[in-house]
């Protein structure tokens, strides 16, 4: 018997008992639907996170703080921990700052391309020509090598002579620009305080410096923590300069943070070496890691449900095929009497099992695609959580994720079908022919 004939016969046999086959396929469908939809959601979210990662500085970007700062923060939370004071430098609380020696040593680590202390830059508010309101803000600095995902305009140029800023969707709207394209090239105003002056000023206004800043564009929304208006280095340094104006040099150059650009392939070793220097470094991936691991747990749990459904479906397959073998005892006997080999009889029943798995998973794929499209559309609707993420498809199908699932389900079906198929293959022709 030709393979084609066997496959055709298998499908014909399934059609003979439409209700029974349909119910079995339905059981497989439930499992495959769960797994395929789940895989698609996890693909969508992972893709989104990866895209976000590459937008905020990519793989070779490290942010670091003094390890001791973190530790003493933790120990302060522990009320029973009382430490003795010595005259030693490290006993002082200013050990939270990153020391120049650490910066120097860090720069020498193999694979570190640049390592710069990150000065603090704080502003009081932003406002614009189209509004009389003032809005509080915390800025971030764009980093060399960053690929900002822009919704309009372009990213600020890091070393431009101009003061440049990329707003976020929310700030652009607050400043009175409904259309994100309109804000590109606009001049907005920011108020920067001088710390020392503000101690003595009676009126906050007296210690604020107003800066005029060019908006280069609006960032596409991101889900990661590091999002907010981003300035170029020129503006950042200017803000810092105003912040620390009049302070003694020693305290003006105290840095809580440093950023480094490193070779992405060596990132783990570099982190390890920085740790020896007393610096705790985090890559953007580390920050995204917690989101990803939460997602992984969720996907695993849902996949277990899908798996349980598939186990139940496998029992359904076994049952369906056993009934089929029983019903077709005579037919099997006849085929054997007419010279059909055991292997081919086995194969023809296996084919039925595989066909059940195939149709169940195809059905599952199609329905989960339809439901996925509906979910995407609903979540992007007005007032829904994804309204401001037009490019983010929560449910994302790709042949690379769907086909392995289909193949896996076909394989599981094949395994489930082996026992009935073996039973059929082992039938004695004369016994089978006598069966009424």
């Amino acid at each position, binding site marked *: 018997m*030709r393979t084609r004939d066997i496959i055709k016969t298998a499908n014909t046999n399934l059609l003979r008992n439409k209700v029974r086959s349909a119910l079995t396929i339905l059981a497989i469908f439930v499992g495959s639907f769960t797994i395929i939809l789940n895989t698609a959601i996890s693909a969508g979210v992972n893709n989104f996170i990866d895209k976000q990662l590459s937008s905020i500085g990519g793989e070779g970007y490290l942010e670091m703080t003094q390890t001791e700062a973190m530790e003493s923060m933790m120990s302060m939370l522990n009320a029973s921990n009382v430490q003795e004071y010595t005259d030693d430098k490290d006993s002082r609380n200013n050990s939270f700052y990153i020391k120049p020696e650490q910066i120097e040593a860090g720069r020498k680590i193999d694979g570190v391309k640049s390592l710069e202390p990150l000065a603090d830059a704080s502003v009081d508010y932003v406002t614009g020509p189209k509004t009389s309101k003032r809005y509080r803000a915390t800025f971030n600095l764009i980093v060399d090598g960053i690929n900002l995902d822009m919704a309009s305009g372009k990213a600020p140029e890091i070393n431009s002579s101009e003061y440049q800023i990329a707003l976020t969707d929310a700030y652009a709207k607050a400043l009175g620009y409904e259309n994100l394209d309109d804000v590109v090239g606009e001049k907005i105003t920011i108020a920067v305080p001088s710390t020392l002056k503000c101690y003595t000023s009676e009126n906050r206004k007296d210690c604020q410096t107003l800066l005029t800043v060019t908006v280069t564009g609006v960032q596409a929304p991101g889900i990661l923590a590091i999002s907010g208006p981003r300035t170029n280095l020129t503006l950042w340094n200017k803000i810092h300069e105003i912040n620390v104006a009049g302070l003694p040099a020693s305290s003006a150059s105290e840095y809580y943070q440093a950023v480094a650009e490193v070779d992405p392939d060596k990132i783990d070793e570099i982190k390890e070496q920085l740790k020896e220097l007393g610096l705790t470094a985090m890559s953007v991936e580390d920050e995204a890691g917690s989101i990803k691991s939460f997602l992984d747990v969720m996907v695993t749990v849902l996949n277990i449900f899908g798996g349980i459904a598939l186990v139940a479906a496998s029992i359904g397959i076994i049952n369906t095929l056993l009934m089929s073998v029983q019903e077709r005892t*005579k037919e099997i006997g006849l085929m*054997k009497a*007419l*010279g059909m080999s055991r292997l081919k009889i086995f194969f023809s029943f296996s084919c039925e099992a595989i066909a059940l798995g195939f149709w169940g998973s195809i059905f599952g794929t199609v329905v989960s695609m339809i439901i996925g499209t509906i979910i995407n559309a609903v979540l992007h609707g007005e007032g829904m959580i994804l309204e401001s993420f037009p490019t983010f498809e929560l449910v994302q199908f790709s042949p690379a994720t769907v086909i392995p699932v289909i193949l896996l389900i076909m394989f599981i079906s094949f395994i489930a079908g082996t026992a009935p198929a073996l039973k059929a293959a082992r039938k004695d022709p004369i016994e089978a*022919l006598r069966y009424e």
Partner: protein
Amino acid sequence: MVKNKRSISDGSKTAKTDVKPVIEVKNLSKTYGKKSTAFKALNDINLSIYPGETVAIIGKSGSGKSTLMHLMALLDKPTSGSVRILGTDASKLKGKKLNHLRNEYFGFVFQQFFMNSNDSVLENVILPLKISGVRGRTRKKRALEALDIVDLENKAKNKANNLSGGQKQRVCIARAIVNNPKVIFADEPTGNLDSGTGKKIIDLLFGLNKEKGVTLIIVTHDEDLAALCGRQIRISDGELVKETASTARTLRNASIKEGDKEDK
């Protein structure tokens, strides 16, 4: 003893004494069931069937005719004794060779038809060709030819279940001959037929014997049909009681149309 008898059998091709038997049965016994329910359906049967022979197996109902036929056709395994096909012990035939024998060397007409009743008549006749791997168009053509021979070409598309008993029997004969077998086993091939249709089927089978040298083994309780065969093997309560050969005269009297003319 058997060889002497064979020399006067009808098939001219079998006249030489050095020809190997197609089927050789030695001390064949078959017991059904175990211990208390054991039933000896066949007891110590010996016989040889030579290429081109026509052999009738006759006996009362329950005497073991079908059992003997199934054993000779290798559909069942004997309790003791042996069946040799063309000199090879059947118990040594396994897998591919056995399947090839069943599929292309033997043709079967079962007493209870054994058709796939939900399939079409054509599908049923095609089955042996499908199993042997003949491709779509060729096998359809050959199946239709076989159906034409049994006068059922116009029923090809019908569901097998919807045929009359006689029509089913003819479908089974078409299925038995479709793969051009060298040996045809027919269990009561005319059992369900009126004498006219029965005669047609008999003519067809004997025609295959004359023209292609097909060996015929026919199980029957019809003495007239048995008399048409070159040899009659009588079975009673599982024992071979008598083996007779038709004389040239009986054969002639039985008037097998074309075959008879050729003989003269």
